[in-house]
């Protein structure tokens, strides 16, 4: 591995940081938007439910590799000035929100209806029922699949290279272009992705087991 010098490793590490940063942006943005999507499709009036379900189908039926350039190149073409990071964050958040929103809608709806009725009979207001009775139970159900989906987010940030981000995968490509050692380089890149994703997988499985025996 003598062809790899400290500058190469530094370059890879910077790429890794971008991957982590983009993942966090995608998760936070997608989480907030996804929460709105989940509430809208669980509790909204009929019209908003239809709209939200259309949104979910539209986004889930669109490749992220198309959403990213759409935000980065498409919006400026319409006269909207978007910074690269904002475009990436927007496209990733929208993409993630469609999946998290759908996962969370399922979790909200899997809390037995009788729980909401019991809360209703105790004269709790709508927001109190949702906040104190439904969501705490839904969050327990939602945690394992949500953490599991974070693995997908981490890997999908590699597509941000399409709009110029030198994240981990792109950093690997660039180094390979100068060293011509694809096997070693991409094994290292794969290993770094694994290091990011494996703890999430383990956490997801552990949470699943924990909540399985918890008080539900």
């Amino acid at each position: 591995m003598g062809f790899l010098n400290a500058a190469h490793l530094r370059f890879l590490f910077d790429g890794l940081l971008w991957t982590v940063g983009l993942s966090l942006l995608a998760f936070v943005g997608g989480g907030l938007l996804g929460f709105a999507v989940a509430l809208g499709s669980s509790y909204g009036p009929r019209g908003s439910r239809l709209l939200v379900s259309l949104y979910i189908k539209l986004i889930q039926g669109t490749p992220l590799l198309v959403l990213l350039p759409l935000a980065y190149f498409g919006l400026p073409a319409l006269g909207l000035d978007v910074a690269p990071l904002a475009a990436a964050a927007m496209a990733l958040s929208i993409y993630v929100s469609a999946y998290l929103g759908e996962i969370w809608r399922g979790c909200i709806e899997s809390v037995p209806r009788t729980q909401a009725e019991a809360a209703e009979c105790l004269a709790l207001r709508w927001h109190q029922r949702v906040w104190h009775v439904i969501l705490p139970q839904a969050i327990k159900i939602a945690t394992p699949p949500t953490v599991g989906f974070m693995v997908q987010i981490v890997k999908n940030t590699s597509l941000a290279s399409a709009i110029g981000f030198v994240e981990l995968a792109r950093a690997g490509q660039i180094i390979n272009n100068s060293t011509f050692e694809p096997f070693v380089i991409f094994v290292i890149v794969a290993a770094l992705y694994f290091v990011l994703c494996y703890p999430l997988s383990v956490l997801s499985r552990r949470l699943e087991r924990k909540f399985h025996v918890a008080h539900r």
Partner: protein
Amino acid sequence: MSPIVEIDNISKCFGSTRVLEGVSFTVRKGSVVAIIGQSGSGKSTALRCIDRLETVDSGHIKVCGHDVTGPGLDLHQLRRDVGIVFQSYNLFPHLTVLQNIMLAPRLVQKARKPQAHETAMAVLNQVGLADKADHYPSQLSGGQQQRVAHAQLVQQLAAPRALRRQINEIGHGGCH
């Protein structure tokens, strides 16, 4: 004195299944009434109609001065005045026994925490479950869960402004 519950000729269908047909009865204040019938005969549905968890197709219901089937029903006040213990008790599994009982006083009656805690413990004492205050419902037996549900109900209706009237479901236990 006018009855506390007045059911007048109510009917209710679920699709093509007629669950209630021309049911009428009244309940006087302070009386205990058991509604007995085969499973699936509509006892629970009738009860759910009284607390407006179901709407009736026709007929009239008046409870604690609320015109349940009329326009302008104050649903929130109805729920404050009427309590139900469900067949499966429906305690909140993510809350301890104490939290279950304190939920309505804290959120609906805006009771302060020490005060809510004190009255909740008093009610738990009454049903003999003070030592289970920090347990979760899943750690209790069915009978204990039922007693917690009753404690919860008493707490809900123990508000100063509430009318201290309760409808108890006799459904569980005796008449299956």
